[in-house]
């Protein structure tokens, strides 16, 4: 026994991991590509960052191809060029995200000041100096709009998900299909629908609840699909155990399945909220954009963050555009917080309380 234990275990080998030589080679190719593209830029009339990026891209891929070809032949060369291509693709895909976040911060942080969260715009216009007025009314408005939309859409969305996973009646396939179709409804169409169904025949004026209804239409598919994914993950054993203990389906769903999926359902809710918090088009048609605080969703024009940003942007002066970016910054922070919350909750193991 003891002799066996003394045999040293070899460290685990990872033949797929790059060796130091591989790393050195990659660094060499990168350096060569940079030198070549700098040289090309120096010699030819091409200039600028974009030209450098393009030349570098071509140079890197061709040097990479040649090196791999010399080492291991055509298949390996094609393989490594393809790796270069997909790496470029992910870089390009992530670039706008970084650019957007940086832009919002750089342009928006001048507009941040405390009165933003304590004052509204009832005695200021968008073209006033940045320190005056604020967007308290817009934050309240967005909160109200989204909250009411949540109250409407979350029950419907979760019921839809329950139908798809628990009841599994004969409409399961068509409903699954319709929910997916509904997630593609353009936001302006949702706005037009509420305009046609409620504003024209009944209210004849703007108010908050109409905006909430339009947002709810956009939110239902997100909530329903995410909840469905979560409910699918609940093990069948739990349902069977509930029924085997003599529970009716209603009790086993309400007391076993839904509590087990609770954190996932909250994630679904938050994702739905994040989806609609910045929705602009229906808001512009339906809620109006008052500059004063309005706590009543059922009457009167209701300002909101997207609307504030839109008006400030449309006003077109440097002050108002700084205001627009500050508004966007606040909106983006809200969205990022919601999204992170959804991620943290969603990463918890399903079934754990």
């Amino acid at each position, binding site marked *: 026994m003891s002799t066996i234990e003394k045999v040293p275990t070899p460290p685990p080998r990872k033949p797929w991991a790059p060796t130091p030589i591989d790393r050195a080679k990659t660094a060499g190719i990168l350096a060569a590509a940079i030198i070549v593209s700098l040289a090309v830029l120096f010699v030819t009339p091409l200039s600028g960052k974009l030209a450098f990026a393009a030349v570098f891209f071509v140079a890197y891929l061709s040097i990479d191809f040649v090196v791999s070809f010399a080492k291991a032949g055509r*298949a*390996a060369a*094609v393989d490594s060029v*393809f*790796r270069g*291509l*997909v*790496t470029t*693709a*992910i870089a*390009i*895909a*992530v670039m*706008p*995200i970084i*650019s*957007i976040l940086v*832009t*919002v911060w750089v342009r928006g942080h001048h507009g941040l000041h405390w009165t933003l969260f304590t004052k509204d715009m009832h005695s200021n216009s968008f073209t006033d100096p940045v320190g005056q007025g604020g967007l308290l009314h817009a934050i309240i408005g967005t909160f109200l709009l989204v909250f009411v939309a949540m109250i409407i859409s979350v029950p*419907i969305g979760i*019921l839809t998900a*329950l*139908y*798809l996973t628990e*009841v599994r*009646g004969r409409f399961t396939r068509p*409903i699954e299909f*319709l*929910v*997916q*179709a*509904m997630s*593609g*409804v*353009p*936001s*302006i*169409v949702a706005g*037009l*629908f509420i305009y*046609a169904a409620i504003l*024209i025949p009944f209210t004849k004026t703007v108010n908050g609840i109409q905006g909430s209804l339009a947002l709810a*239409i956009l939110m*239902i598919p997100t909530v329903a699909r995410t909840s469905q994914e979560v409910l699918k993950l609940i093990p069948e054993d739990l349902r069977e155990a509930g029924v085997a203990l003599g529970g*009716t*389906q*209603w009790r086993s*769903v309400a007391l076993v399945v839904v509590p087990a999926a609770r954190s996932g359902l909250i994630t679904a809710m938050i994702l739905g909220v994040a989806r609609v*918090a*910045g*929705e*602009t088009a229906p808001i*512009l048609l339906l809620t109006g954009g008052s500059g004063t605080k309005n706590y009543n969703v059922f009457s009167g024009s209701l300002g909101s963050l*997207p609307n504030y940003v*839109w008006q400030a*942007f449309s006003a077109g002066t440097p002050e108002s555009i700084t205001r*627009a970016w500050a508004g*966007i910054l606040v909106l983006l922070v809200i*969205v990022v917080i919601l*999204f992170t919350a959804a991620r943290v909750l969603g990463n918890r193991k399903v079934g754990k309380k």
Partner: protein
Amino acid sequence: MSSTTTQIPAAIPPKREITTKPRFSDRVFRGVVTSGGLSSLVILGLILIFLLFNGYNTLKTQGLHFLTSSNWQAAINDSGQIDPKNSHFGIAAMLIGTMVVAVIAVVIGVPISVGAAIYLTFYAPEAVKKVMVSAIDLMAAFPSVLFGLWGFFVLEASGEYWAKLLSKYFSWIPFFKLPAPYVTRSPFIAGLVLAVMIIPIVTSISREIFSQTPLDRMQAAYALGGTRFAMLRAVAFPYARSGIVGGIMLGLGRAMGETVAVYTVLNIVYQVNWHILFSAGGNVASMILLKFGEASPYEIKALMAAGLVLFILTLIVNSLANLIVSRTGKSGR
């Protein structure tokens, strides 16, 4: 059976009824859940009915011209009333514009998204993958007004530069010709913004489909001595092909319905414009937003009809896309 039961004293509880008939509470539960589940049908149906109801008059008076003409004019007669005889509503220019910007978005956005999905599924180290997936999913939640502002203030500048470059070297291609030297706020730039906007959805769908590639086939390809690219070509691409097509169409549907971002970056001009670098274009959604502000009730009905057309168009594209996506995974080689 009955004779034995009568002999036993009554200490034993009465026989339980064994039945498959749902209890009352279950019937209520199923009823409530089913009616909740049918809500999507009801909502989509109501959207169709209300838009049709409001837009019917316009569709009837304009007939097919609504889809084929590019003339949008709400005429007013001498007494200041709406003059239905001389009013013309046609959305051909905007329909074409919708397709043009959406197709540009797909042509630019899809290779990037699919490449990114391949990288994330087959190449990325676990830590990098986590961060990138979160970042791209976060981008899906960015408000569209933000994309609009970013496109207007940031992308516009470099977009113009690329547009000039394209028109300089590729003006022999009809699409890249410039009728006049104006390249700001062109369909090309709107397409770029939309391309950025559809990257998250196309990436996440492609990623989901690639991640379902059967492991045994992948390992078989490696065992035969294939490189990673050879494996992708022989196993992953054929497996994922139709699903990717579905993802592309979902992206197309998203790009067709986008309103605020297009409105912000595009110079909306009511004419058919195939020159994607030229500063004129539009799409149905942004046109609705543009005209809505000062529209008379009569013109709003025409906008409802335009909304109906957009709704049906996106519904068709999305339904096709979902059919295709849901079919992959079951087929494959």
